[in-house]
């Protein structure tokens, strides 16, 4: 019960803190709007059926990923910069639980970018939305949320090892959008890039969302994609536990949270 209480209060606080930052507000509100405009014009003559839904999803997912890059990924470093990292670390509640609460808060709030992208397309272009499998889409979004939470924690821990978080936060935004096929199928990428795409969980999360929107004849394809996404996410969780153990050990040996 205490665990849920900590998670809940942390995520609420995190949402407020994140929204107070101008960069986060830009990623959450302005980014999906401008991306929708840009992508709409790029796909306008694509002759794709249902291209507007494709554009809305792409722009929304880009906004979501930007929010994650400029919030969750740098959260530990932000606490360090504010001088509150050691205080959080020594509280009776495990640090990993607090971080989980922060990342859940950020991720839930970041999904608003999908809504903003949909609203932009509706208001600016009166774009029709056509979703084939609404129920499956809800499940896909839930799975994507879990996937983005785990990858955010993983990146947050990895970026803790450097003082130049700002640089790396900027450098992971576009490459992930690119190789995870947020805007086009990864199959069009060169064959040597595709294995990298397939080991990244967002690739499967995006595939799952796109399947639900476009529709499918065989539900086995959907559940196979979901299964792969779950498997990769579990591997990420194992990775997170190992990294946390390693960092925790180093912190105790050095008696310092300045790992870099």
């Amino acid at each position, binding site marked *: 019960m205490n665990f849920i209480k900590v998670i809940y209060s942390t995520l609420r606080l995190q949402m407020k803190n994140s929204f107070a930052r101008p960069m986060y507000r830009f990623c959450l509100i*302005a*980014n999906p709007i401008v991306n929708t405009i*840009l992508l709409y*014009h*790029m796909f306008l003559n*694509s002759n794709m059926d249902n291209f507007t839904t494709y554009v809305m999803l792409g722009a929304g997912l880009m906004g979501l990923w930007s929010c994650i890059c400029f919030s969750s990924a740098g959260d530990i470093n932000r606490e360090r910069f504010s001088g509150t990292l050691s205080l959080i670390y020594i509280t009776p509640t495990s640090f990993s639980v607090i971080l989980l609460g922060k990342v859940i808060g950020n991720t839930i709030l970041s999904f608003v970018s999908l809504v903003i992208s949909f609203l932009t397309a509706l208001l600016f272009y009166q774009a029709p939305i056509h979703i084939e499998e609404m129920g499956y889409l809800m499940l896909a979004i839930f799975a994507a949320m879990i996937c983005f939470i785990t990858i955010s924690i993983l990146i947050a821990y990895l970026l803790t090892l450097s003082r*130049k978080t700002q*640089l790396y936060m*900027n450098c992971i935004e576009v490459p992930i959008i690119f190789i995870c096929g947020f805007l*086009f199928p990864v199959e069009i990428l060169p064959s040597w890039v595709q294995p990298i795409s397939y080991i990244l969980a967002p690739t499967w999360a995006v595939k799952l969302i796109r399947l639900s929107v476009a529709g499918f004849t065989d539900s086995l394809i959907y559940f196979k994609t979901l299964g792969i996404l779950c498997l990769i996410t579990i591997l990420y969780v194992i990775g997170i536990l190992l990294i946390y153990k390693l960092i925790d050990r180093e912190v105790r040996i050095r008696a310092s949270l300045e790992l870099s």
Partner: protein
Amino acid sequence: MKRFITQSWLNFKGQKSVFNLAEFLCFDTGYPLITLIFYCVLAGYSFHTTDLTRWVVGNSFLLCTNTCIFSLGSSFTGERYHGRIRSIIVAPRNKLVIVLEKGLFSGIIAIITVFLGFLVGSGIFRVDFSRIHLFSFFLIIVIGMFSATGFGLLLSTFGLITDQMHLVLNLSSYALMIFCGVNFPVSQLSYGARLLSNCLPLTRSIKAANLLFEVTKGAEVIRLLLEELLIGGIYFIAAFFLIRMVEKVAIKKATFEVF
């Protein structure tokens, strides 16, 4: 002149000193190149084309965004952050010189980055540069970067007027991406948006660079370049006057910000 170059170099070094060489290359070259490749692949997919010349050209010009918009645009905010703004405001030195100092090395780096973008982009997407006049192409880049640097400097002065520079700089970078005809033709935009497009830097340089790949229209290219030069000049002058205005307010109100 020596002092001008020394000050320019110090300004540039101050902006980049936080990074080592590998990080500088990664942030100022590697990341923009990945962005260029991303938008070219996206254009190939959405426009169903294999001839990506105009996207390689357009997105290469946009490679200057990191330097001209983000680095240069946040320079006065950086000065305030590091406590140098007081010295700059009260210094008897001409403020236009200070503005130009900030733009010199950023402009040079932007030219190199754009040229590198063309080389890498043309290599990956097989753009045939043999059929264009390379000197004209280089001239277009230089004039385009002059204009973009002026725009970046004007944006940098906003750092003295607002504390929302993240928003200003990011929106400006998206404005260039949407309104300059980089990823889709300007003709697709509404009338109002096309007017805005004409006031932005790079629109004409990108158009001129694209014209080089078509049947040579020398007079049209020269006209576009002259207009681009004029727009760049207007941005430099506007940046200068904005700083003068802030300077006056600073003296009157004994404060270094207008907001």
